[in-house]
């Protein structure tokens, strides 16, 4: 089923081609906004055919996009047909290791009816690609695979090519078909004209038409197929260029020196402590930002280590042992109500039974395996950076603020780093390299140390969550009350907040302001992005139901407080934490009324796609239908086994998944082994089934690592999770469970996100399986043997 023999299709523009454009003073933005005819064509060899200068014309673009981005509503921003008939596509949605470049290439090939190999995808470069914000939040498929943006541009372009072909061939459009880069007569394939002869050298000059007809999934021959990733051979043979491999002529090497403690200020710098060291170029200081520049990387490491700095004392951090209580008691808060039927207290008071439980989730980190790295070349009033940032346009805007340059003079070129899973150190290290380059006047490369990557990144949110439900005499849920506390500080830098990540803050920029708000305003528009609303309630807001469930009495309230550490999106941000609480609690309710956990879920779900993923996972796992916990056959057994289920409507409607986990627990030690994971996923129309499987398998195991071992720790002044001994990621050699993925393809439904769906349900499925095996409920992540043992004892 795989197709690894496909010719390597570079997913980035060849460096020399990009540089040639830059040298010629060419701007793709100018091309798109210009009025004259012009063609830039990259043949498969990447050769540049034609260049020309154009006048820039201002225009109205996407709501939040940079003003000078190629406008997302123009076909020419996305597609160019070369004089050799090759198709160049421009996308803001990056390849982060999830196969998105392959899937987007499939999409373009399919919609424009050209072979996969004839499509060249240019990814995330502010000189060429439209501003699509960040590549995150499971938004790449919804954004680019439905009717807007890339897919919409392709469909519009195909319709335009059919029109042009009709004129050229003098045959009505309905008697024509697009095949292999030509428009030809349905009845006579010899009557045809190549795209290149119709459009090469010209702009489409068309708005993206969201009503342009997409090819129906039943006709797909490239999209929807398990095409192998063209970047895989280079990755497996060590020749792929990551951000960490970018080298530019005359490049120096930098390292940063972060504060001695969280909140410490720089008092003194003793440059003489390092100025005589081999390779020394410069010490760079900007408020609390400190870095060094050297000729060679190892010299920079030595110099950074030897540099004598004096830092002020810093206030003590909150104690980790009592941190969840600290969150509940902290003031001020920013309160958000997602749903409120206003009858929850009354319903709970009249319920036959009220069940309550509290769940805790720690800060976790992205912990990219390659520490973050960027190369910056800041010369005078211009800057070019090669960065693994998830948002090149965001990076451009905030980098310009940091350097005091005009955004238009900053070019950000995406280069893939190691897997990021959200905002790792990519934006911060790009700032680091740029600050050092600006001071040194030469290109500078910075790769963070392991400690600097881990100790100062924007962590995934800690949470403490109270769940409360009322049951009627028959055991049905009649009211659900959810109240959570979660700390926040900083975030993605977006267009205006370089201080949302550590480097910008150290250099003097404040993070986005914390805006207290209590009590929460009543909800007037429904959003379940954070999955704060459980799947089992009706989600009634603004006069209609938006939820996936049947429970009418509902209240969901969040209190954000200020975090001592930087926070930001980590794969399934908030969604994973909330879902762990909801799905554990649902299991507790089922157990209370002695119902089978699958049947009890189905009983309270109204959304058919949710019911379908639950049924599909249960069926594939050969679900043992009965109440939990399992009756243990022999009381003297040393190991108990059990199964658990969990499910989610990701962000309410951005993908559906259910998971069955089977575990064994060693009763004397609390040692847990996950034996099998069955995950079902409905992500709408599937673009690449093998890519979706890979994402779901990886999500299942990454979720398992997060559930079993991952927790950021700290002492009075510093984060103490600073390497792989102090932050526990499951290695390749752990007892890997059998992972089975069930795909529910919905060819006629919109494509949803898929990168964060499976991971969201893991902790709940495992916690529920532990309960099934042992009767012990574990309500705090990670599920360490000590915690399991303690739960067994209570």
């Amino acid at each position, binding site marked *: 089923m795989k197709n690894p023999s496909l010719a390597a299709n570079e997913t980035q523009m060849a460096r020399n081609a990009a540089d040639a454009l830059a040298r010629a003073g060419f701007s793709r933005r100018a091309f798109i906004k210009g009025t004259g005819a012009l063609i830039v064509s990259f043949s498969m060899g990447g050769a540049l055919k034609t260049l020309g200068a154009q006048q820039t014309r201002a225009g109205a673009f996407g709501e939040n996009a940079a003003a000078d981005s190629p406008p997302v509503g123009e076909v020419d921003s996305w597609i160019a047909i070369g004089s050799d008939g090759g198709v160049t596509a421009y996308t803001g949605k990056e390849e982060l290791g999830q196969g998105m470049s392959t899937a987007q290439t499939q999409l373009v090939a399919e919609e424009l009816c050209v072979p996969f190999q004839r499509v060249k995808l240019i990814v995330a470069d502010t000189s060429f690609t439209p501003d699509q914000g960040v590549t995150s939040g499971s938004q790449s498929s919804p954004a680019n695979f439905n009717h807007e943006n890339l897919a919409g541009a392709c469909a519009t372009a195909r319709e335009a090519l059919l029109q042009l072909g009709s004129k050229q061939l003098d045959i009505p459009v309905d008697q024509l078909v697009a095949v292999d880069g030509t428009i030809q007569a349905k009845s006579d394939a010899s009557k045809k004209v190549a795209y290149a002869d119709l459009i090469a050298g010209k702009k489409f000059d068309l708005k993206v038409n969201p009503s342009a007809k997409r090819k129906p999934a039943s006709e797909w021959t490239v999209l929807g197929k398990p095409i192998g990733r063209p970047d895989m051979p280079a990755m497996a043979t060590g020749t792929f260029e990551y951000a960490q491999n970018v080298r530019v002529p005359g490049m120096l090497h930098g390292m940063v020196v972060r504060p001695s403690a969280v909140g410490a200020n720089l008092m003194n710098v003793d440059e003489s402590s390092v100025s005589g060291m081999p390779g020394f170029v410069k010490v760079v200081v900007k408020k609390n930002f400190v870095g060094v520049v050297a000729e060679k990387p190892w010299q920079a490491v030595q110099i950074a280590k030897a540099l004598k700095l004096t830092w002020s004392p810093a206030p003590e951090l909150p104690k980790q042992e009592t941190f969840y209580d600290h969150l509940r008691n902290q003031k001020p808060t920013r309160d958000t109500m997602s749903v409120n039927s206003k009858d929850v207290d009354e319903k709970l008071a009249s319920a036959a039974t009220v069940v309550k439980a509290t769940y805790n989730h720690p800060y976790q980190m992205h912990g990219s395996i390659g520490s973050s790295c960027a190369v910056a070349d800041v010369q005078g009033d211009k800057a070019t950076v090669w960065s693994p940032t998830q948002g090149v346009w965001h990076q451009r805007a905030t980098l310009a603020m940091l350097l005091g340059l005009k955004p238009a003079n900053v070019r950000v070129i995406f280069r893939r780093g190691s897997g990021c899973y959200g905002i790792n150190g990519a934006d911060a290290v790009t700032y680091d390299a740029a600050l050092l380059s600006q001071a040194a006047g030469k290109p500078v490369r910075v*790769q963070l140390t392991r400690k600097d990557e881990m100790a100062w990144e924007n962590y995934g949110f800690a949470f403490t969550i109270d769940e409360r439900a009322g049951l009627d005499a028959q055991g049905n849920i009649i009211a659900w009350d959810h109240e959570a506390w979660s700390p926040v500080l900083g975030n993605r830098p977006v267009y205006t907040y370089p201080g949302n990540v550590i480097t910008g803050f150290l250099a003097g920029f404040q993070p986005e302001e914390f805006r207290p708000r209590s009590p929460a305003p009543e909800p007037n528009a429904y959003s379940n992005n954070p999955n704060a609303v459980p799947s089992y309630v009706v989600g009634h807001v603004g006069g209609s139901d938006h939820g996936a469930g049947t429970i009418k009495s509902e209240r969901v309230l969040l209190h954000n407080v200020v975090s001592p550490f930087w926070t930001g999106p980590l794969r399934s941000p908030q969604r994973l934490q909330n879902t762990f609480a909801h799905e554990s609690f649902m299991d507790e309710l089922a157990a209370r009324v002695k119902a089978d956990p699958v049947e009890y879920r189905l009983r309270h779900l109204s959304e058919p796609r949710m019911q379908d993923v639950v049924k599909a996972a249960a069926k594939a796992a050969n679900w043992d239908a009965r109440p939990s916990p399992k009756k243990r056959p022999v009381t003297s057994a040393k190991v108990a086994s059990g199964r658990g289920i969990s499910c989610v409507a990701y962000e309410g409607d951005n993908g559906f998944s259910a998971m069955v986990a089977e575990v064994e627990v060693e009763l004397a030690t609390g040692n847990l082994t996950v034996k099998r994971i069955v995950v079902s996923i409905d992500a709408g129309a599937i673009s690449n089934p093998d890519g979706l499987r890979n994402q779901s398998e990886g999500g299942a195991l990454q979720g398992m690592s997060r559930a079993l071992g991952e927790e950021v720790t700290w002492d009075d002044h510093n984060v103490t999770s600073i390497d792989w001994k102090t932050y526990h990621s499951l290695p390749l050699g752990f007892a890997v469970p059998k992972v089975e993925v069930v795909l529910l393809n919905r060819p006629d439904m919109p494509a949803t996100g898929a990168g964060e769906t499976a991971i969201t349900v893991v902790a709940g499925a495992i916690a529920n399986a532990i309960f099934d095996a042992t009767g012990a409920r574990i309500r705090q992540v990670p599920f360490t043997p000590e915690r399991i043992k303690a739960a067994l004892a209570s």
Partner: protein
Amino acid sequence: MSLISLKVNGQTHSLDVDPTTPLLYVLSDDLGLRGPKFGCGLGQCGACTVMIKGETVRSCRREVGSVQGAEVVTLEGLGTVEKPHPIQKAFIDEQAAQCGYCLSGIILTAKVFLDKNPKATEKEIQEGMSRVLCRCFTHTRMLRAIGRAQKEMAR
């Protein structure tokens, strides 16, 4: 600084470097190789792995002066896009990566392990891979690829 002679992927290089520099820095920056990568600098993750005398070496922790004259093989020395080693081919065929940053560690550790234990069981292979990390958690595919390569190499 001193003159160091290093043989990497069959090519001999004479380099004027500080002999205490970790081998990884010399491979990445002086020789411009892309296979071995900086992951932790602590020998914990495996991303910097190279082979010397049939053993895996964490190049971020090995001084270049100590491998003078030895033959170093990196991921790009194991095979090429045109002619991949059976393990590399198995990884490509199984699509056994996501970001792929860890692959030097995974593939070279598997190569050394299979060379020494050609008949290893699935469980033994898993144990043999206990000191390398993949943060995308492509574990199931990677272990499947190693199993596939094992069969291929036994032919």
